[in-house]
């Protein structure tokens, strides 16, 4: 084995690790310290150490509690919607139909556009266009401006997030389904397995790993939703669609509670990390390996 000198090691590793440390590591540790102080963000004003007060304050902060619960509710509905749709798309895109590649290309496209722009596109559709449609068809109980009704506005976020993510998650399911060996499917067909039997008994257990990845990706991106939230509803009407990430942003940059807002940001990190780790541990156990 070639011996690398310490000099070369430094030259290759140090530049990136230095930048990474100043952009990610230092702010992370500074953030933990900020979460224990009370500060309004003005450099000249004092930062007062308040111990765990910030963390205790969260529990009685009604706006924060409802925004966290809403985020959980939103995440739950969205991951079901995204994964059901994505799996259905993936099953269609792996049939022998000639149009399957064109379909895959088209279904994936929304993912590339980016949350902020998608939010603006749908703001027009779910707002003014829906209202106009309701007036024209008389179905005004379904077609009205969704964005001004608190319950429907959360659902509007689900619709847009699903539209954005389904094509992306589909790609991962496709990779999983294409990885199933032909012989397994053929053997099942010889044994007389129908469409549903093949799907549930053969395909699903063999793409367990894809389920892990897809759930992991959709949970973490839904839980951290910000851009779509900002452009589609802006948290409104009356903060009724403000999600966790936006609550942190508003607490820090609109209400100028830098210390308190940062303690929420640390709680956000802990919640995101726990969700991800728990989910990986649970689904890893269920995976089936082909020998």
């Amino acid at each position: 084995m070639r011996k690398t000198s310490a000099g070369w090691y430094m030259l290759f590793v140090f530049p990136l690790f230095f930048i990474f440390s100043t952009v990610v590591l230092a702010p992370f540790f500074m953030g933990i310290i900020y979460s224990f102080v009370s500060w309004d963000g003005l450099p000249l004003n004092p930062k007062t150490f308040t111990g765990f007060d910030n963390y205790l304050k969260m529990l009685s902060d009604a706006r924060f509690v409802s925004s966290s619960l809403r985020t959980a509710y939103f995440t739950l509905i969205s991951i079901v919607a995204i994964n059901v749709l994505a799996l259905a798309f993936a099953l269609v895109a792996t049939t022998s139909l000639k149009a399957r590649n064109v379909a895959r290309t088209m279904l994936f496209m929304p993912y590339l556009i980016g949350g902020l722009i998608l939010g603006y596109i749908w703001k027009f559709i779910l707002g003014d266009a829906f209202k106009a449609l309701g007036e024209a068809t008389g179905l005004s109980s379904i077609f009205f401006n969704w964005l001004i009704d608190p319950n429907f506005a959360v659902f509007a976020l689900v619709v847009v997030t699903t539209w954005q993510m389904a094509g992306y998650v589909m790609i991962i399911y496709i990779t999983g389904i294409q990885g199933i060996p032909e012989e397994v499917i053929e053997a099942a067909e010889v044994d007389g397995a129908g469409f549903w039997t093949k799907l549930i008994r053969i395909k699903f257990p063999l793409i367990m790993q894809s389920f892990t990845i897809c759930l992991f990706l959709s949970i973490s991106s839904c839980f951290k939703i910000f851009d779509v939230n900002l452009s589609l509803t802006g948290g409104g009407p009356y903060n009724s669609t403000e999600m966790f990430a936006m609550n942190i942003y508003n607490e820090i940059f609109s209400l100028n509670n830098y210390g308190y807002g940062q303690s929420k940001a640390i709680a956000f990190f802990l919640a995101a990390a726990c969700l991800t780790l728990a989910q990986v541990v649970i689904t890893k156990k269920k995976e089936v390996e082909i020998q």
Partner: protein
Amino acid sequence: MKKALNAIANVSLIIGCCLYLFPIYIVLVNSFKNRAELYESITALPASFSFEHYARAMEKMVFLDALKNSFLVTVISIAFIVALASMCAWMLARTASKLSNAIFMIFVATMLIPFQTLMMPLMQEMSWAKNTLRLPMTDTIGGLVYMYIGFGSSMAVFLYHGFIKTIPKSLEEAAAIDGCTAFGIFWRIVFPILQPVTVTVAILDVIWIWNDYLLPSLTLISKANRTIPLSTASFFGQFTIQWNMAMAGLMLTITPVIVFYLLAQKHIIKGVASGAVK
């Protein structure tokens, strides 16, 4: 009979997909309409194609400047991420030591940290660097690029590291015996082999950096530095009621993305799939 059924299935699949992309059709057709036309029917094709709204939206968004800024930020950031992360990952993978392990684990573990956890302290640190150290970290394209390198490093190192472990060392060892330096070995022999990962990293980072809103919104203050998401957001703040002009602005912002997608479609889908599966 079977042929006919097959044709029907193909056609209905394409129609279904077109319906799925209906929102983009809505944006496109309404960007050409005048106000009366727009409210008469939202789904109808425009009576005439006028590019008037496009011209105005372009001017109001300072679109060409924003396009240039987005392009610069994306390309320079990715060039640095690819170069620095591949070098770093190769050295970490090829030098088995506790230090290498620890550095690698730190990179991987920080992938769990959401941006919102870091944004406030990061901005404090960067304005401190600007005020005390006189480094141009805030409100500059360079400062933004620096932060993207930091945020992009974990995933890039992770992807490169995983790939490097699967390639044999024999070529590198032969080159070392011939007296090649570590730098030469890496750039002449290893980097070309890493090409599939480089494509994956570049694709994933284009999607992320091109569309990113929050980080540039916190660092870039001057109008001249705005990237496309920033100029779209400020444009939308002013012209929400004038939907036809807003739609023209949205068409302008999504056109580069669609062109990029059509040009590099295969690489993008492959890159996204392999990036997610690892």
